C-alpha cells in the first residue's frame, strides 16, 4: 500500500507506526515530504493481524537486529519464559566426569551431556565434575 499526496503528486513517507490499540487497530502516519500534509492509515483488526502474522514491521525505520525466534516467543499465547537462554561460555568437563559420561550408551551421550551442561550453565558452574553430575541427577530427577 502506498500513499500519494494529491496536491503535490508526491509519494508520502511513513513517520510513525503506533502499536495496536485495544480494538486491534493500528495507526500508521504518513506525511508528504514536500508540503507536510499528514494522513493516518487506520488498519482494521484483520489487517493488523495479517501484518503481525507475516512477521514484518511497520514504521519509518523497521530495520535493526531481529531477535531470533521473536515471532514464536512473542506469538505464543502461553510460552515458557526460559525457552531461550543466554549462550554463555563453554562448560568444561573434568576427566573423571568425562569418563563417567563414557559409561553411557553412545547414542544417549549427546543428550546426557547437554542436560548436564544446561544444569551447570544455569548455575554458573564452569566445570562439570562427578559431584556436579550427582547434584544434577538429584535436581533433575534422573534417578
Amino acid at each position, binding site marked *: *500500500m*502506498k*500513499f*500519494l499526496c*494529491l496536491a503535490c*503528486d508526491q*509519494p508520502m513517507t*511513513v513517520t510513525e*507506526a503506533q502499536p*495496536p490499540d*485495544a*480494538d*486491534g487497530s493500528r495507526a500508521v502516519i*504518513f506525511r508528504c515530504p514536500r508540503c507536510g500534509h499528514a494522513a493516518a492509515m487506520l488498519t482494521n*483488526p*484483520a489487517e*493488523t*493481524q*495479517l501484518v*503481525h*502474522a*507475516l*512477521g*514484518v*514491521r*511497520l*514504521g*519509518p525505520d*523497521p530495520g535493526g537486529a531481529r531477535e*531470533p*525466534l*521473536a*515471532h*514464536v*516467543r*512473542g*506469538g*505464543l*499465547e*502461553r*510460552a*515458557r*519464559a526460559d*525457552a*531461550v*537462554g*543466554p*549462550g*554463555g561460555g563453554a562448560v568444561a568437563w573434568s576427566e573423571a566426569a568425562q569418563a563417567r559420561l563414557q559409561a553411557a550408551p553412545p*547414542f*544417549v551421550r*549427546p*543428550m546426557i*551431556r*547437554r*542436560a548436564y551442561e*544446561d544444569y551447570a*550453565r*544455569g548455575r554458573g558452574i564452569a566445570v562439570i565434575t562427578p559431584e556436579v553430575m550427582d547434584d544434577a541427577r538429584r535436581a*533433575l530427577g534422573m534417578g
Partner: protein
Amino acid sequence: MKRYAEIAGDGGSDVVGQVLALRQRLEERLARVRRVVAVMSGKGGVGKSTVTATLAALLAARGRAVGVVDADLNGPALGRMLGVRGQQHLATEDGVLPAVGVAGVRAVTLDLFLPGEATPVAWRHPGGLAADTTVWRGAMEATALRELLTDVAWGDLDYLFLDLPPGSDRFAAVAGVVPRLDGVVVVTVPSLVSLSVVRKALTAARERGDPVLGVVENMAGYVCPHCGRLGPLFPSGGAGDLGVPVLARLPFDPRVAAGADTGVPYALEAPDTPVGLAFAALAAALEGRWQE
C-alpha cells in the same frame, strides 16, 4: 497523478524488502544442508513422527549430521521422541542452538516453548477478531515455521528432516515456506482407508512435481513375541501398488512406542530385531537414493 507502479517503495516500511530478506536468510541457512527431506502422511496416527525420529537417530548414529524440525506445530511430539524435553535453546550470534537429542540429533520443536505438557499451541492475537481466524492462523504458522528453520544455528547438516502435520493440504502449506525440498517420504499403514488418502496425497504431490522418494509402510504385520513369526495386522492393503518405491515395511512392535516415550528409539537399542532391521533398511534405502 502518479500511478502505483511509478512510486518506488512503500514510504518507509519496506514490507516487500523485509519479506525478501527473510526468504534470503532462510536460503542461506539451508545452503549448509545437503538434503532437506519432508516426512508426511495422508492420515494422522500412522506413526509418521516415530518414523522421523527413528530415521533421524539411525542416520545420526551412522555419523551423519542430522537435524529435525517438528513442523507439526499443533501436535509437537518430537521433543519426547528425541529426548529433548526440558532442554533450553541457547542464543548465539549465529542464532539459537538447536536442542540435542538421542545420537546427537539436532532438533527444534514448539514443545520446548510451551510451559507444560498439557499446554496447547495457541497464538496471541492483537485483538478485535476471533483467535482462530483461518487466514491469520495460517500466516502465523507459516512465519513460525520459517523462524524455526531460519533462526536456528543448524550448522552443516547432511539431512534436515521436516516432520509434517498429517494431511496432504498441510504439506502444500509447508512446501510453500521451504524454498528447497530434496525428498519427500510418505508414511502410511496398510489399511484401505490410509492407502486411499495416501493415494490422493501422492497424486497431488506428482502434480506439483514434488520429489517423492517413496512410501514407508508402517505397522506392516505383527511380530509374535513368543514365536517371532510375522503375522498380518491389517486385513487389507499393501503399499506396493501406489506407483512409488516402497522404502520399507516396518512391523508393529509395542516396544517401538515405548522407545518413543522414553526418547530412545527402539531400533537403536535393538538393531537386530525385525523392526530394528527394517528401520536400518529404511535408513540405507534413503541414503541409497542419493548414491545411485
